[in-house]
């Protein structure tokens, strides 16, 4: 899933300052999973902003609505019925959601309430960790299901470097050395000899693309 965290409240207040009628738009997918922009969080943020406005003696209307998935056009289109009531949308979607809404309603100012962060997993309740950089050419098989591009701080494909300490990365003693993990995992499968070969330089053009990457599937089109 894509993870995000709510922006500091002062930053949000500053961005919404010019507007009086706001639609706070939540998303029921990734950002709900990481407790940043789901229905509950949208209600909390709206309530907080309304209270802040009242304290300031400011006129402010905020309504809340949550769509299943903010990055899908078909889920956003129904907002057409209500969007005219508002002079801005405060989106609690990830960057994809914010922009998808902006694309459908280009005349409505849209404000991001979240900072989108990474593709990751819910490793434990209340704990999300990055595990994929979207390189476009997955090499997880070669490394026992542990991605060195994401989890090695230096993206080494022929690791480890000399900096690890007690199995932890030099940059942070809380971060496990990905190569330590890879070696342990491959040892379990008796596949350690896989690491004897020199892994060739990565084709980064599959991650960078020519402009924003896209996927087109004609079999999926109307």
């Amino acid at each position, binding site marked *: 899933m894509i993870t995000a965290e709510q922006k500091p409240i002062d930053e949000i207040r500053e961005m919404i300052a010019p507007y009086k009628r706001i639609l706070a738009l939540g998303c029921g997918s990734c950002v709900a999973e990481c407790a940043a922009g789901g229905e509950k969080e949208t209600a909390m943020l709206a309530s907080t902003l309304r209270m802040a406005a009242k304290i300031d003696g400011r006129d402010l209307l905020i309504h809340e609505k949550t769509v299943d998935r903010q990055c899908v056009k078909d889920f956003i289109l129904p907002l057409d019925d209500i969007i005219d009531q508002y002079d801005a949308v405060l989106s609690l979607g990830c960057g994809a959601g914010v922009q998808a809404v902006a694309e459908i309603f280009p005349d409505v100012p849209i404000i991001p309430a979240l900072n989108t962060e990474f593709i990751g997993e819910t490793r434990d309740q209340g704990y999300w960790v990055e595990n994929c950089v979207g390189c476009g050419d997955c090499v997880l098989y070669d490394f026992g299901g542990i991605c060195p591009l994401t989890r090695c*701080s*230096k*993206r*080494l*494909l*022929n*690791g*480890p*470097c*000399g*900096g*690890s*300490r*007690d*199995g932890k990365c*030099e*940059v942070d003693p809380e971060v496990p*050395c990905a190569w*330590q993990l890879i*070696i342990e995992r491959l040892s379990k499968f008796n596949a350690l000899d896989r*690491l*004897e070969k*020199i*892994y*060739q*330089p*990565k084709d*980064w053009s599959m991650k960078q693309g020519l402009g924003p990457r896209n996927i087109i599937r004609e079999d999926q089109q109307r």
Partner: protein
Amino acid sequence: MSQLKKILDKGDLAVTAECGPPKGADPEAIFKKAELLRGKADAINVTDNQTATVRMSSLAACGLLISAGLDPVLQVVVRDRNRIALQSDILGASAMGIRNVLCLSGDHQSFGNQPQTMGVFDLDSIQFIQVVKTMRDEGTIWGGEPLTKSPELFIGAVANPFADPLGFRPVRLAKKIRAGADFIQTQCVYNLDRFEEWMNMARERGLTEQVNILAGVTPLKSSNMAKYMKKRVSGIDIPDELIKRMEETPKNRQRETGINICVETIQRLKEIQGIRGFHIMAIEWEEAVGEIVGRAGLLPRPSFDQD
């Protein structure tokens, strides 16, 4: 031709030392260090923005050393440059007469004074070694396009016998050799037992015959330095007896003890089969190099004629 290569090819013990460029644009800083090291080492490593701290570029500093009549080892980290820039610098280095290059990963950018920068890491150090070897021996850039003139470079890599996971280290060494490393400089040695263990593993795999291993040594300046390095710097193993020895020395004699330990270490390292030389990293203490090399019986160094 590389002086370092010449000496190693002859089968003699080689000595290299390290020179850190200044945090500024003054070439005098390099020339001063050059004079302290002239005649004390066969080749002089110039570090590349070590600890991710902005310094005069290694390439430029090596160029200055060439003009001063010395044989530099260009250190290159993959943290700051993509494969276009790396290959470009290799061509430029060779054009300037630099004949040795050391390929490293580099300390992570978060350690230095520009932590907000993007770490490049387009290639890793082993891929980079391969690229340099391809340029030198096949006369092409990565991907096969021919060069008008191949670079002439003696290729080096770093080995850390003290890093985790210990069992995997010889595999990594083998990979570096297969990628094209001609010489290895190790992280500084204090724990001789552990170092011997690593050398044994390397020897068993036949690696000591395939590559020139230079053991790294660093003189301790003080007991505080020893304790700091043990605690904070990854991949350095200082046995407690050495720390004790430094602590028990009065402060004004600690430098002397540090040099003694260094000389003793070199003497022991000389006994280990497969050691082809020493890499003396006297950080901000280049004056000590001469004394260490002298007392270790490694002077005079063979004369260097640039060609």
